[in-house]
């Protein structure tokens, strides 16, 4: 009797997990299919011309702006975030009040809606520093926005490096600098890369913060002071105007592809570093 009951509960649980997994998968597939079906027919060569006109809403300037935005933001935020994390994990004594403050501030900033960053960036960089709507203002705002992501993932990566390396290094008479940069940091690279990729995803997907700071000019920015719209902003602008909804879907297809490429690259890089060896 008990055996039959157990079989029945097992069966119900199995059906339930299968059912919920299927629903999740179906929703995701539906979204992708919806985007592809609506977008692919509009993917024409003219959408990849270098100039945007009101007749031809080319997304090429937006693609180029996105690349600029990603690289410039990472150049600022990644070193800043990594060195901050090294300080927090390796140098500061545990239980330090100041550090706990920094850490909770970072946690909080990670949860703030991006439109708040947009408002802050507009007032701070756009108006106070007089950058207006520009690539520079957008880059600075996004740098602040992704900093908590980089700090948090790097901290986790550094903490997950076994103390065996640190002890071994110190026992051989190495100083802190050598232990951190020669032993701990190399072992933490895969984890740090994961954080950087996550940050890239946030930059590529950001619209609210950029509308306020980088503006929506749909041309290739010639200087850091020029306004630039990224793909996400481009999509927002096209669908908002209502004349080019098909082209907006086409942009979404390209965005999907870019995210796919970024994720694959991340997986490959992480694999290369792990193969080189971590452990202990």
């Amino acid at each position, binding site marked *: 009797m008990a055996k039959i009951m157990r079989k029945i509960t097992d069966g119900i649980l199995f059906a339930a997990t299968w059912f919920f997994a299927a629903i999740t998968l179906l929703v995701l597939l539906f979204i992708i299919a919806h985007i592809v079906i609506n977008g692919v027919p509009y993917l024409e060569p003219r959408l990849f011309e270098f100039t945007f006109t009101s007749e031809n809403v080319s997304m090429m300037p937006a693609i180029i702006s996105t690349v600029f935005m990603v690289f410039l933001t990472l150049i600022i935020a990644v070193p800043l975030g990594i060195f901050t994390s090294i300080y927090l994990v390796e140098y500061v004594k*545990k239980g330090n009040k100041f550090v706990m403050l920094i850490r909770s501030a970072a946690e909080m900033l990670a949860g703030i809606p991006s439109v708040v960053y947009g408002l802050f960036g507009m007032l701070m960089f756009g108006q106070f520093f007089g950058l207006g709507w520009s690539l520079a203002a957008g880059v600075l705002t996004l740098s602040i926005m992704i900093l908590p992501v980089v700090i948090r993932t790097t901290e986790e990566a550094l903490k997950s490096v076994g103390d065996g390396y640190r002890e*071994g290094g110190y026992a*051989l*008479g190495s*100083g802190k600098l050598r232990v951190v940069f020669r032993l701990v940091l190399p072992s933490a690279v895969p984890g740090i890369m994961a954080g950087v990729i996550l940050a890239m995803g946030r930059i590529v997907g950001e619209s609210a913060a950029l509308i306020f700071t980088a503006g929506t000019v749909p041309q290739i920015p010639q200087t850091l002071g020029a306004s630039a719209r990224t793909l996400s902003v481009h999509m927002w602008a096209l669908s908002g105007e209502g004349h080019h909804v098909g082209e907006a879907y086409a942009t979404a297809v390209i965005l999907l592809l870019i995210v796919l490429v970024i994720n694959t690259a991340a997986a490959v890089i992480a694999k290369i570093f792990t193969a*080189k*060896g*971590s452990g*202990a």
Partner: protein
Amino acid sequence: MSISIKNCDLFYGDFHALKGIGRDEGMEISENKVTAFIGPSGCGKSTFIRVFNRMNDLIQNCKITGEITIDGQNIYEKSTDITQLRKNVGMVFQKPNPFPMSIYDNIAFAPRTYGIKKRAQLDEIVERSLRQAALWDEVSDRLKKSALGLSGGQQQRLCIARTLAAEPKIILMDEPTSALDPISTGTIEDLIRELKKTYTIVIVTHNMQQATRISDKTAFFLMGEVIEYDKTRQIFSNPKDKRTENYVTGRFG
């Protein structure tokens, strides 16, 4: 080099982990001998071995009093050069901890720390250290390969070789064979017997047979105190203290 300890106390915050070691006549660890620390878990033997190369400095709220003298110098004086101290006093850990780099770079790590950069000189140190650690024949054809590909026993011998490359006078071993199989353990024990001709060795071990096999002197620890410290033969055949007798005859611990 010998080590002498006078009235050493150690606190982790409020916890009194080592209580007056070398309280009355002092404790002496002799040169070119193997000294074993035995005792039940949590008795302070690993904590004590880390006093000699100041590894406890890494632990917050750790306070040490007393006098630890190596080569005529109190190592807890402000003027102590910790890098120099750790060059003289090497350490091998319980879990083999080869660095995630090539075998060659592992061995060259310490010499490079001390500023040796010449290729020929490094080559020579790497070969000599690996030979001393009885590992050269097994790895000489793959020095550029990752050290993480070695077996557990080989990794531990690599860690010993890495320590030897710093040209220490004293080697501290914190349960160096507890993560290894019996055959690898035997190899390491042979190695220790060989190394004591040149180095002073202090070894923490959970394995009493191991202490009798390789050590000249043995200290028995209990609750942060040294209960008895004598020739190994004496400790195991004719202990003076009842608690030592109970432990070495397997009545507790």
